[in-house]
């Protein structure tokens, strides 16, 4: 049977797409294991020397620590503020709802360059010293829309009858949220917070303008790329790749698990979230 989905051409594009997306990344992984400093063929054999090099580097360690601090602060703040905002907006019929949803979405539409430069100017104006705190504030602006869209999609699709029933039975607003709403959506919220963490952990474009003298992992990679061709970058990149992949597996598993629980389909919530974007 040839259904409409049986398009060989679309399948070929898909294979080409996956190869195009993953090929260059796998090249980096391959050369992180190269026994010589050459980043070209022929491949001369495997070794872990580049990993040993980065694990003994104090500079890499402190950059990684800073990245962890910033990403944790960003993800935790986003989780709290984003959940409150998404819950508030999905449980009101106020006319402010539309404009606020737009405000929460807006940072996604602007290139990071604009957010970074505007914050640089603003921090200089009010004489705030650039530090990891200013980086976390900037990242909060950047990741908030992603979290908000996913959280709102999850909260929007809950059956309101459950919350109403709990309220009718005398549960206060906080109790309803904690005992009825949260148990239904927490996997999605945690998944979205992981996404926020991953986005912050890898952010460079905005970070560059608001970081001051500190370093993060992307800042370290950037400065190394500018100075020399250093093969240890392959090893750092590979670890970074594995780490974000791990975070993503958690996000994917949590959101698709919660979807499957809800209605038997395994679509990760990223998709409906994108659909709701203005």
């Amino acid at each position, binding site marked *: 049977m040839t259904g*409409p989905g049986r*398009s060989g051409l679309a399948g070929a594009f898909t294979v080409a797409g996956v190869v195009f997306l993953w090929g260059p990344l796998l090249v980096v992984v391959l050369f992180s294991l190269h026994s010589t400093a050459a980043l070209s063929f022929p491949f001369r054999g495997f070794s872990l020397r580049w990993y040993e090099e980065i694990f003994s580097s104090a500079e890499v360690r402190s950059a990684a620590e800073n990245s962890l601090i910033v990403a944790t602060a960003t993800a935790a703040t986003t989780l709290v503020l984003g959940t409150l*905002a998404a819950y508030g907006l999905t449980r009101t019929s106020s006319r402010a709802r539309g404009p606020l949803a737009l405000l929460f979405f807006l940072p996604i539409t602007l290139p990071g360059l604009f957010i970074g430069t*505007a914050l640089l100017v*603003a921090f200089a104006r009010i004489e705030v010293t650039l530090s990891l705190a200013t980086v976390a504030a900037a990242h909060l602006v950047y990741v908030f829309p992603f979290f908000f869209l996913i959280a709102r999609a999850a909260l929007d699709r809950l059956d309101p009858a459950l919350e109403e029933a709990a309220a009718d039975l005398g549960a206060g607003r906080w109790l309803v949220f904690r005992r009825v709403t949260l148990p239904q959506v927490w996997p999605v919220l945690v998944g979205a917070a992981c996404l926020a963490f991953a986005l912050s952990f890898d952010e460079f474009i905005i970070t560059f303008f608001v970081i001051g003298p500190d370093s993060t992992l992307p800042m370290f990679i950037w400065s190394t790329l500018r100075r020399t061709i250093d093969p240890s970058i392959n090893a750092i990149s590979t670890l970074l790749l594995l780490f974000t992949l791990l975070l993503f597996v958690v996000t994917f598993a949590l959101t698709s698990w919660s979807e499957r629980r809800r209605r038997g389909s395994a679509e990760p919530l990223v998709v409906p979230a994108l659909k709701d974007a203005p």
Partner: protein
Amino acid sequence: MLRAGPLALAAPAVAVLLVFFVAPLTAFAVYSLLTGAFYEVSGPLTLDNYREAVESPLHRTLARNSLLVGLFAAVASVVFALPIAYWLRYTRSRWRMVVMFLIIASFLASYLVRIYAWRTILGSNGLINSGLDQLGVIDDPLTFFLYNRFAVTVALVHIYLPYVVLVLYAGLAPLSPAYLEAAQDLGAGRWQRWRRVVLPVAAAPVASAFLFVFVLSAADYVTPQFLGGTSGGLLGVIIQQNMTAQGDYALGAAIAFSMLGAFLALYGVVALALRLTRLDRLRFVS
């Protein structure tokens, strides 16, 4: 007692975005109307920065590059992503979730690592050249891959393709296979199904994905630094330089807001085109 509505829960987020997003951008806009030097700005209000932003030959060259790279990257991403999104939506293959996973996961792969990977692959000592050299195909390295607009465009497509696939996939979600089967039953061939059913539905998401890639590509300042060389510089680079090494906040702001104006104009054109073709008001009966 006055009880705050649920909307009050959004107050902290609103406050954060007002302080760290709306206020800085407003200040930045005001800066574009002042005179800047040595990381300071001073009055009176003037449009001189905008004049320089638009008239300087260097800015014009970079703006042209930004336009070309943005267009190429956006068109290539959409053309590449549309069949992939179609496959993800309608295939019955058991690889569907695996491919979906691989595409979303690659979205999170580090931005700098991707740029670095392309430099490794396209460079004169890179994988393509060393591979061809090993095979005896070439003697001298081919240099037309790297340090030009082509390299920048390839890397940008690589960076934004996963996002475009997801947007288009989400756009096709309401078009159930039943519509395509109905079209087939009514005698529409493959090409007609694409033109009359899939493309009209995909038009609005295609437009939004196109704008997304165009804007982010045209304003990129890191990719051109590593891959663009002398011919592939973009407008974002000059903004970054004014904000850092040059210390001219006012001129940097004026170039940035000129670019934003161009983006808004393009957005208006695309929105108008969708409205005129009535593709913005497709509704599905469920």
